C-alpha cells in the first residue's frame, strides 16, 4: 500500500481525501474555520489536480442546493461549512437526506452567534442532529482524513443511501499541523469503490425518468421518515464494517460507532465527541498510572446514535460523565440527555452527570479533564439529583 507521511494542516488532510476519492462536484462558500479546506481544494482545481468540478457559489444555501442537484444527477458530491453557514443550509440538508442522496460534507464545528465568535464548540452540527444525515465525529486530523474516505463508502452503500456529515472541531483540527499518513490516490479510489454507482439518478434516456420531490400526504409521508430510520439502522453495521475494512486495507482504526478505551473495569467513564476525546484519552492514561479506574467512551457516530453500544460499554461503570459541547437552550446538554436515555432502562444503570464544557472555545485541557474526573468520582446515585449538571469553569464573576 503506497503512502506518504507528511506534516500537514488538518484542512489539507481533508482536501486530500476529497481529491483522492475523485469527487465529481464540489460546491464551496467560505466561512471560518472551514475556509482552508475549500482553499486547498481550489488550489488543486487551479493546478489541474482535481478530477471533478470545483465551483464557488453565492451562499451556503446555494452550496448545499448545488450539491443536492449534482448528487441527484448521479455525481459524487461534496461541500463543507461551519456555524451560521450550516444553519443557513439547514432547510436544504433535510431535502438532501429526505431524498436519500449520498453526498459527503464536512461540518467544521464552530459556535453559533450571538455573541459572534469563531471559536469551536458543537452547537452548529448539534442543531442539525434531526435532519437525517449520518454524523461522524473525529478525534484527530488523521481520523478526519480516514473518515472522509470511509464516508463516501458508507453514504453510497445501497443499504444506506444517506448523506454523511463528518464533524471536526474548527481550528483544533482544521488549523493544526500534525504528521498525517496519506495513502496513494489509486488505493483510496479503489477503497471507495471507484466511480459512484448511483442507486438511481436523473437521466433523460431512462425509460421511466426519475422524479425527486413529489408531494405526499398522510398515507405515505410518515412511511418516508420510517424508511430513513431503517436506513440509519442499516448504517450502523455499514459504519462498523467499513471501519474494519479500512483497518484491514490501510491499518488505521479509530473506532466504529464508538471507541471504548480502558472502560472494561472502569469505575468512572467520560463520554465525549470530537477532539476532546484525544485529551480525555491522555488524561485516562495518566490517571490510570496513578491507579484510578477511569475510562473514555468516544462516540464516533452521533447519528445513527449507538445507544445499545453505549449501554454495553458503560454497563460496569458506577458513574458516567458526559462532556457536552452544545446546549439545547431551555433544556441543557443534548449529548448528556441522549446518553441518559441510552442508559435509563438498563439494570444497575450508572449515575450520569453532564459537564457543559468547551462552549465558545473555552479551554478543555488535560487539567480540566482531570478536574472533571475528580468531580465525577464524587458522584453517587444518592447525590446525583442535586448536581446533574456542571458548567465547567463558568465565569461566575461575569454572570453574577
Amino acid at each position, binding site marked *: 500500500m503506497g503512502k506518504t507521511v507528511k506534516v500537514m494542516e488538518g484542512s489539507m488532510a481533508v482536501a486530500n481525501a476529497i481529491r483522492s476519492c475523485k469527487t*465529481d*462536484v464540489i*460546491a464551496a462558500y467560505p466561512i471560518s474555520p472551514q475556509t482552508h479546506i475549500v482553499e486547498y481544494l481550489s488550489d488543486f482545481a487551479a493546478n489541474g489536480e482535481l478530477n*471533478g*468540478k470545483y*465551483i464557488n*457559489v*453565492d*451562499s451556503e*444555501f*446555494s452550496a448545499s*442546493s*448545488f*450539491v*443536492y*442537484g*449534482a*448528487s*441527484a*444527477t*448521479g*455525481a459524487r*458530491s461534496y461541500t463543507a461549512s461551519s456555524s451560521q453557514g450550516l444553519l443557513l443550509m439547514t*432547510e*436544504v440538508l433535510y*431535502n438532501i437526506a429526505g431524498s436519500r442522496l449520498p453526498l459527503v460534507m464536512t461540518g467544521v464545528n464552530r459556535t453559533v452567534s450571538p455573541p459572534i465568535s469563531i471559536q469551536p464548540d458543537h452547537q452548529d452540527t448539534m442543531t442539525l442532529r434531526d435532519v437525517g444525515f449520518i454524523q461522524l465525529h473525529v478525534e484527530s486530523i488523521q481520523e478526519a482524513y480516514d473518515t472522509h474516505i470511509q464516508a463516501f463508502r458508507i453514504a453510497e452503500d445501497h443499504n444506506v443511501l444517506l448523506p454523511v456529515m463528518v464533524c471536526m472541531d474548527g481550528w483544533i483540527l482544521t488549523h493544526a499541523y500534525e504528521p498525517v499518513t496519506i495513502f496513494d490516490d489509486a488505493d483510496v479510489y479503489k477503497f471507495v469503490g471507484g466511480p459512484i454507482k448511483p442507486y438511481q439518478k*436523473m*437521466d*433523460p*434516456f*431512462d425509460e421511466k*425518468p*426519475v*422524479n*425527486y*420531490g*413529489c*408531494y*405526499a400526504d398522510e398515507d*405515505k409521508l410518515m412511511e418516508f421518515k420510517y424508511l430513513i430510520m431503517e436506513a440509519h439502522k442499516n448504517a450502523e453495521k455499514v459504519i462498523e464494517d467499513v471501519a474494519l475494512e479500512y483497518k484491514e486495507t490501510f491499518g488505521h482504526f479509530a473506532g466504529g460507532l464508538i471507541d471504548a478505551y480502558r472502560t472494561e473495569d472502569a469505575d468512572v467513564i467520560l463520554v465525549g465527541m470530537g477532539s476532546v476525546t484525544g485529551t480525555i484519552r491522555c488524561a485516562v492514561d495518566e490517571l490510570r498510572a496513578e491507579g484510578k479506574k477511569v475510562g473514555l467512551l468516544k462516540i464516533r457516530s452521533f447519528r445513527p446514535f449507538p445507544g445499545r453500544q453505549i449501554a454495553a460499554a458503560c454497563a460496569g461503570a458506577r458513574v458516567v460523565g458526559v462532556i457536552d459541547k452544545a446546549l439545547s437552550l431551555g433544556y441543557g446538554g443534548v449529548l448528556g440527555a441522549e446518553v441518559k436515555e441510552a442508559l435509563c432502562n438498563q439494570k444497575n444503570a450508572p449515575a450520569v452527570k453532564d459537564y457543559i464544557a468547551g462552549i465558545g472555545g473555552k479551554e478543555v485541557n488535560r487539567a480540566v479533564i482531570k478536574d472533571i474526573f475528580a468531580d465525577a468520582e464524587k458522584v453517587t446515585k444518592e447525590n446525583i439529583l442535586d448536581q446533574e449538571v456542571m458548567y465547567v469553569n463558568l465565569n461566575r464573576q461575569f454572570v453574577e
Partner: protein
Amino acid sequence: MTEKKNLLASGHKACPGCTVPIAVNKVLEATGKNVIVVTATGCLETFTSLIDFSSWEVPWITPLFENAAAVGAGVAAALEAKDGNERDTKVVAFGGDGSTYDIGFGALSGMLERNDNVIYVCYDNEAYMNTGVQRSSGTPFAATTTTSPCGEASFGNIKYKKNMPEIARAHGIHYVATAAISDLKDLKKKVEKAMAVKGASYLHILTPCNVGWGFPSEKSVEMARLTVNAGLFPIIEYTDGELTAVKKIKKIPVEDALFVQKRFKHLKKDEYAQQLKQVQAIADANIARYGL
C-alpha cells in the same frame, strides 16, 4: 397523423383556466425529451407531482422554494463533470414570480453570474397564487391581493412591478427574453434560441391566473394578449445585452386590460383616478423605452 405526447402529461391538478401547463408544455416541446427539469416550490410543483401520479415524463426534481436556480446549476455541473455532457442534455429550471423575484432571487443571481448552463424560466402570474394570492414583488402597481387589499387607507399594491428581465440582463448573460401565453410560436422560438446558448439564459413568461386576477377561466389567453397590448408586459429579447427583438403591440388603453380583472376593478372608481393614471404612465414608459 400521430397523437403528440406532452412531456407534462395530462391529468394533473392545475385549476381550470391555468396557463402554466400550456407554457411548460411549449417549453418542453422545444427542448424535447433530452432535458432535466427543476421546479421551485409553487403552483407548478403542487399540481403536477402527487406521488405515484406525477405528470412529468422527463427527469424532474423539485427542491425548495428558493433554490431552483442553484439546484439546476448543480445538475448542469454534474452532467459536465461526468462526460462533458456529451449528450447535450438541457437543464430547465422553472420558478414562479414569488420564487424568482423574491425568495429565490439570490440563488438566481448567483446562477446567472456564474453563467451556469441552465435555462431559467420564470412563469409569472404576478402573485403568490399557490398560497392564496398574496403579493410578490412581481405584482403590478395598484393590484389587490390578499395581502395588498384595497381599503380606506390603501389602493392595493403600492410598489411597481420589479423589472426582472432587465436585472437578468445586467448579469451579462447571452440571452434574455420575455414571452406571453398569447403567442406560443414566439415562446417556442425563444426557447430554441435559449437552447443554443452555452451558459445561462433567462426566459420570462406571462402566465395569467384566472383565480388570482379574477376573470373567467376561458379568458386566460385573451388576458395575456390584453396585458401585452396595453404595454404592461413588454415582449422583448436581448442577445448579448443588445435589444434584438421587440413585439409590436396593437395599442389599447390600460383600462381595457385592467377593468376586466377583479384585482383592478376598484380603479374604475373616481377616487382612484390618480392610480389609473399612474398605470397608464407605466405603460407609456414601456412603450417609449422599447418602441413597442
